[in-house]
C-alpha cells in the first residue's frame, strides 16, 4: 500500500474508533508491521481528548490470507485470557464486516516489548533461563485453562478427546492436497506414518494456541510481556501446542534448547508442573512429527499464494524456501531413525 493510501487508512481508522468509543481521537501516524502473512498488522498512533498519545494494534484480514482463519476466532481466544496470568493485549473492538474499513479487523492496545526472529539463536541472551521459565509456564497455564468458562469453547463446540489428532491431521493434509505445487516424498512418508501410528486420546481438552513458539511473544528484558498471534487457536489436545513449541525448527542452530531458551527436560518439567498434565512420550513424539506436517502445510500454502500471484509478499516465498526446507529435514531425520 502506498504511503498516501496508508495514511488515508489511518485517518479512517481514527474516525471509526472515535465513533465506536465515543471520544474524539486525532490521527498521528500509522506504520505497517513486517512479518506474518495471515493478517495486515498496523501500529496506529492516535491522540485522545486529553492530548495523550495512544498506540493501537490494528489487524486487518488480507484479501489473500496464508491461513484462512476467522478473525472472530482470534478475538475470542484473546478474550479468554484478558486480565489473567497469560499476558495478552487488551481488546478494544472486533469488526466482522468489510463495510466499515474495507476488511474485517480487530483492534487491541499495544503492549510494550519486542518480538524476536524465531531463527535468531541469540535473541534472548542473556535471559534465556528467566524467559524460558515464563514461556513454558504460560503454555502450561493455557493448557490448564478451564473450558467451562471459555468463550472459545463455546464458539467451537463438539470436540472429542478421542479424535482431536485425526481432525487436525485431516485438516492440514487437506491444505497440502489443495495447495501443493509439487510432490515431496519425504512429506508423504510422514503423512503415512502419522495415519499409521495414532497417539493416545488427549488426557483432557484444552485451548490450543495453534502457533505457540519463539517469535510469537513480546518480551522486555527478562520478562515475557505478551503472547500474540492467536489466529489458529482451537480446542484440542494440549500436547499439540507442546509438540509445535518444541519443534527443532524453532531452535535449528541450537537444538538442545527448544525455542532457544532452556533444555527440553527442564521445559517439560515446568510445563507439567503448571498444567498438571502427564505427558505420554510416544504421543508427544507423534505431535512433534505432526508439527512438521502442519508446518509444511503452512509453508506450502505460502508458496502457493506466491506462485499464483495472490500475494507477492516476500514472506510467502521465504516461508516456502527456508522453513519448508527445515521441516522437511526434521522429518527426514525422524523417519530415517525409525528404520
Amino acid at each position, binding site marked *: 500500500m502506498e*504511503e498516501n493510501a496508508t495514511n488515508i487508512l489511518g485517518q479512517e481508522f481514527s474516525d471509526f474508533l472515535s465513533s465506536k468509543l465515543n471520544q474524539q481521537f486525532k490521527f498521528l501516524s500509522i*506504520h*505497517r*508491521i*513486517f*512479518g506474518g502473512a495471515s493478517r495486515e498488522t498496523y501500529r496506529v498512533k492516535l491522540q485522545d481528548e486529553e492530548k495523550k498519545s495512544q498506540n493501537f494494534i490494528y489487524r486487518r484480514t488480507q484479501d489473500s490470507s496464508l491461513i484462512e482463519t476467522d478473525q472472530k476466532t482470534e478475538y475470542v481466544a484473546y478474550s479468554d485470557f484478558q486480565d489473567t496470568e497469560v499476558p495478552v493485549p487488551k481488546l478494544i473492538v472486533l469488526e466482522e464486516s468489510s463495510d466499515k474499513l474495507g476488511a474485517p479487523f480487530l483492534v487491541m492496545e499495544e503492549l510494550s516489548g519486542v518480538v524476536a526472529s524465531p*531463527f*535468531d539463536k541469540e535473541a534472548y541472551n542473556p535471559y534465556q533461563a528467566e524467559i524460558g521459565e515464563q514461556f513454558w509456564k504460560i503454555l502450561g497455564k493455557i493448557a490448564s485453562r478451564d473450558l467451562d468458562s471459555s468463550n472459545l469453547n463455546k464458539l467451537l463446540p463438539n470436540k472429542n478427546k478421542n479424535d482431536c489428532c485425526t481432525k487436525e491431521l485431516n485438516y492440514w493434509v487437506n491444505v497440502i492436497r489443495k495447495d501443493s505445487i*509439487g*510432490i*515431496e*516424498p*519425504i512429506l*508423504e*512418508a510422514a503423512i*503415512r506414518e502419522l495415519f499409521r501410528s495414532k497417539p493416545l486420546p488427549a488426557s483432557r481438552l484444552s485451548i490450543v494456541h495453534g502457533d505457540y513458539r519463539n517469535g510469537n511473544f513480546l518480551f522486555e528484558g527478562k520478562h515475557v510481556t505478551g503472547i500474540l498471534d492467536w489466529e489458529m487457536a482451537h480446542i484440542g489436545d494440549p500436547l499439540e501446542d507442546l509438540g509445535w513449541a518444541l519443534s527443532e525448527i524453532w531452535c*535449528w*542452530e541450537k537444538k538442545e534448547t527448544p525455542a532457544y531458551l532452556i533444555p527440553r527436560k527442564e521445559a517439560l518439567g515446568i510445563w507439567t508442573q503448571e498444567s498438571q498434565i502427564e505427558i505420554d512420550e510416544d504421543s508427544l513424539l507423534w505431535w512433534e512429527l505432526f508439527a512438521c506436517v502442519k508446518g509444511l502445510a503452512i509453508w506450502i500454502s505460502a508458496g502457493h499464494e506466491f506462485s499464483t500471484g495472490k500475494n507477492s*509478499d*516476500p*514472506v510467502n*516465498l*521465504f516461508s516456502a*524456501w*527456508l522453513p519448508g*526446507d*527445515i521441516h*522437511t*529435514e526434521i522429518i*527426514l531425520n525422524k*523417519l*530415517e531413525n525409525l*528404520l
Partner: protein
Amino acid sequence: MKPEINTALITLAQELIQRFSPLLQDEYEQSRLNSWGTLLLMASMDLDKAADNLIEQNKLIKTFLKKYSRKIIDRVLIQEIDLLIKVKRPKYDISALDELNQELRGTLVKTQAYFEKESNPEALKEIWKILRIMHSHRKVSHLLAVLKS
C-alpha cells in the same frame, strides 16, 4: 566470457540490501526490500547447480525403480514404472527436467508406500538414501547464519 548470471544476481542482492534499503524511510518497506535481497541471494546460490541436481535425482530414482520393480507384484505399479523408466527426454532445460522429476517423485511415493506395506527394509533404506541426497540438493537451512550476517 561474459560475467555469470549468478554473479550479477549476488551483486544485485548486495546493492538492494546495502545501498537502496537504507534510503527507505518506512520500516515495513525497508524490511520487505531486505527480504527480497536475501531471497535473491538464495536463488543465485541455487541457480548454478539446478539442472545438474535434477539430472542426478532423476537418474537415482530411475535406477532404483528399475532395480526394485522385480520385487513388486502390483501390476499397475509395475506398468507405471516400466513406462517411466523408458522415458527419454533429451531436453536439458530446467522446466523439462523438473516435469520428469515430478513424475518420478510421484511413482517413488507409491513405491515407498508399497514397500512399507510389504515390510521390505532393504528397499526402504535405499529410498531414504535417495531422499537424503534429493533433500541435500534443495537444502538452504545451512545458510541461516550467512543470511543473518
